[in-house]
C-alpha cells in the first residue's frame, strides 16, 4: 500500500513541483507585493509596508480601475452572448451534411491557431483609417466613417468583433463535440410524441448540453476577462479609456508607471472578482439544471 502510494507520489511529483514553481510561488509573491507601497521610480524606491489594506483601500475608490472592471465585464458578457449564439448555430449546421462541409470546418477553425497579437495586427491592417480596406469600403458603399481612433463606441465594438472572430470557432468545436455525443433516444421519443424542432432544441438539446455549456462559458468568460494582446495591438486601450480593459490597465500601471505594489493588488482583486463571477454563474447554472431535472 505504502509502496503504491510512494510510486504515485513519485509520478505526481514533477507536476506538483511545476505547479508550485509556476503557479503558487508567483501567486503568493504577487499577494505579498500587493501589501506594499513600491515604485522603483520613487524618491524612496524600496518596498514600504503601509498596512495590509493600504493598496486595496485605495483601489476601492479608484474610479479608473473600477471603470476598467465594469468595461471588462460588459465586454465579456457581450462577446459571450454572441459567441455562444453564433457557435451554437454553426455547431448545429455542422451536424448536418452540406457541400464542402469539411473545407468550411477547416477554414472556420483557422482563427483559433492564430496568436492573439497577430489577430490584433491583422485587424489593425484591415481597419486602420487611411490605409486599411474596411474603412474605404464602408465609406464608399455605405457612407459610414469607421475611425476607432476617434470614436469610443467604434473602438469597443471593433474589439468585440475581433474577439468574436477569433474565438467563435472554439465555441463551435466544443459545442459540436457535445452535440455529437448526445444520446439519440430522447430525440426519437420527442419526435414520436409530436414535438417540433424548436421544442426539441429548447427542452431536450439545451438541457442535455448544460455541462458542455458550463465548460464553454467558464473558459470563454475567464479568457475574455483577461484580454490584453489584441487590444494592445489594435487600440492600445484608447481612445481615452474606451478600451482600457482591466488587463491593459494593470499592464500600464505596472510596466509603464511601475506601481508594482498597487498593480499587484489590482491583479489579486481582479482575480478575486473573476472567481466570484464564475462561482455565481456556476451556482446559478447548476441550480437551474437541478430545478429542470
Amino acid at each position, binding site marked *: 500500500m505504502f509502496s503504491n502510494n510512494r510510486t504515485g507520489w513519485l509520478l505526481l511529483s514533477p507536476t506538483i513541483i511545476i505547479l508550485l514553481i509556476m503557479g503558487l510561488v508567483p501567486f503568493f509573491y504577487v499577494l505579498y507585493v500587493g501589501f506594499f507601497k513600491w*515604485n*522603483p*521610480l*520613487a*524618491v*524612496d*524606491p524600496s518596498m514600504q509596508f503601509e498596512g495590509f489594506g493600504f493598496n486595496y483601500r485605495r483601489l476601492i475608490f479608484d474610479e*479608473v480601475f473600477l471603470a476598467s472592471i465594469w468595461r471588462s465585464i460588459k465586454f465579456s458578457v457581450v462577446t459571450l452572448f454572441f459567441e455562444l449564439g453564433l457557435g451554437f448555430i454553426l455547431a448545429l449546421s455542422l451536424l448536418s451534411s452540406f457541400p464542402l462541409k469539411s473545407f468550411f470546418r477547416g477554414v472556420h477553425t483557422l482563427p483559433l491557431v492564430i496568436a492573439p497579437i497577430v489577430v490584433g495586427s491583422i485587424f*489593425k491592417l484591415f481597419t*486602420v*483609417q*487611411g*490605409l486599411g480596406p474596411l*474603412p474605404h469600403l464602408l465609406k464608399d458603399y455605405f457612407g459610414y466613417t469607421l*475611425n476607432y*481612433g*476617434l*470614436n*469610443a463606441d467604434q473602438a469597443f465594438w471593433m474589439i468585440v468583433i475581433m474577439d468574436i472572430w477569433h474565438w467563435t470557432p472554439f465555441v463551435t468545436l466544443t459545442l459540436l463535440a457535445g452535440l455529437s455525443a448526445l444520446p439519440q433516444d430522447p430525440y426519437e421519443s420527442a419526435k414520436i410524441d409530436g414535438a417540433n424542432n424548436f421544442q426539441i432544441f429548447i427542452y431536450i438539446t439545451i438541457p442535455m448540453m448544460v455541462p458542455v455549456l458550463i465548460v464553454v462559458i467558464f473558459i470563454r468568460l475567464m479568457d475574455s476577462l483577461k484580454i490584453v494582446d489584441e487590444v494592445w495591438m489594435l*487600440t*492600445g*486601450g*484608447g*481612445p*481615452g*479609456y*474606451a*478600451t*482600457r480593459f482591466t488587463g491593459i490597465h494593470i499592464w*500600464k*500601471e505596472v*510596466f*509603464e*508607471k*511601475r*506601481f508594482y505594489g498597487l498593480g499587484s493588488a489590482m491583479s489579486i482583486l481582479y482575480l478575486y472578482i473573476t472567481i466570484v463571477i464564475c462561482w455565481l454563474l456556476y451556482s446559478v447554472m447548476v441550480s437551474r439544471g437541478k430545478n429542470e431535472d
Partner: protein
Amino acid sequence: MKNLIIALVASTFSFAAMADGHAEWWKKAGAPYAGTVLQGVAENTPPGQFAGEVLAKEFEALTGIKVQLENTSWDSMYDKAIKDMEANSGIYDFVYIEQDIVYDYLNRDFLVNITQGLANNPDLQAPGVSLDDFTTFIDYFKDGSGDVFGVPMEAFIKVYLYRKDLFEAADAKAAFRAQYGYGLTPATSFDQYRDNAEFFTHYCADNGMECWGTTVQGHTGHPASTYEFLESIGPSFGLYNWGVNMDNYHSCVEDGGQLNGGRAKAALNFWTQLLPFAPPEALQSTWSEVGASFAAGRAAQGWVYGENAAWIATDAEKSAVVGNVGVMLPPTAPGVMTQAASGNGYIGYFDGGAYGIPHSSKNIEATMLWLQYVALNDHQADWAIAGGRITHKDTYADPKVLAVDEQADGYFSLMRDTGFLYAGAPPFPFHGAGRGAIDPFIYSALAGEMTPEEALDGACKALDQVMSDLGYQG
C-alpha cells in the same frame, strides 16, 4: 535600403583603412574574449540596423567577438531591457538608452560607469577613441560628476518638413493668396501653419491627390501622441519641462506649474484643431506612421522626427517625395526662440540614444570594447548617411555627409547650427510614470471626449498625484 548598401560598401573601405591603423590593437585587445557572444537590444531604427548589420560584423572580423543586436519595436525594447535589468538576469550585455529614460536608469543604478570602467582597465582603452569627439549630446548620458554611462549612437532634432513641390506649385500659390490674402510659404507662425494645413487639405482633394495639410502624431492609445504634445508642440508654444515647476514638482498653475496654463492650453487647442487637416490615419499614428505618411506623400507639412528626415528626403526606394522635401525649424510662439537661444527654453526635442552596459551583463569588458568600436570616428560618416544621425562633431564636415546634406535640404547643417535650440527630455526619474498619468487625457482631447482645457486640468492633477505618490513633492 540604398543608403544602407552604399554605407556597407563605403564602410568596407573605411574599415580597411582603420584596420591598417589600429587593427593589431583590436586583435590583441579582443583575443581574451574571442568567441564571446554579446547580446544587445535596441529600437529598430535605421542607425540601429547599421550597427547590427555593418558595425557588428566588422567588429567580429577584427576581434573575434560576436555581437548579436536585437533591433525591435520601441515598446518591446523597453520591456525586454528593463525586465532584464530589474531581474538582474544578464541576458543583455548592452541596451539602448533613449535620452528620456536615462535619468530613470541612472536613478535605479542599472548602468555601468563607462568612464570609471575604462580608467580601471587601461588595457581596454582603444586608440583613436575619445569621448571629446562627441557633440554635446553625450552630456545627457553623464552623471553629476561627468562620468559617461552611455555611448551615443544616434542623435536627431525634430524638424519641420514640407513638400517643396506643393508649396512651389504656381496654381497653389495663386489660390492661397486669393483665399488668405498673403503668400504661400512654409510656416513660421502657428496661424500660417494652420492656414497651410487647411489650404492643402482642400487643394489636394480638389486635384484628386491623396494628401492632406499636415501630419499629426496623434495615436489615441500610444504614448507617441503625448510625446508629440509635450516635446514638440508644447515647447514651441513655450511650455517647457512638461509644465512641471522644477523647484517644487507641481504641474498645476495654482501650485506654480504650467501644464494647465495658457501656453499649454493654446498649444493643445492648436494641435487638436489640426486633426481635420491631417491624414485619416493620424489618430493611429506613432512616429513611424508619421514618417511613413510623409514619405508616401500624404502630408504637405509636419513635425517629423529627424531619424526619418534623411531617408524621406533621399531614399527613393522607400520615399515618394525624394527631391521635394524642404527642411526648416518648426514655427514658434513669440519669445520662444529668444528663450531657447539664451538657454532658458527650447523649441523642440533633441532626440537620440546611446548604448549602455547593464550591471547584470556577464561580459562587461568585451562590451566596453564594442562600445568603443561604436564610438570610433572612422565609420561615423557612413553611419550618418545610412541612418540620418550624427553624434560626432567632425562628422558634419565629412564630404560624404555634406553631399547628403545637400540632397536633404540641409538637414544635417540645420542640426549642427540650431541643435542648441533643442533639448532632450527633462531630467525626471519618474518619466514613465508621469507620462503614463498624462496619456489618457491627451488621448481624450484628441478623440474629442474632453476639451483641451478639461484635458490639461485633468492631466496636471494626475501628474501631481503621481509626483506626490512617488515622494517628489516633499
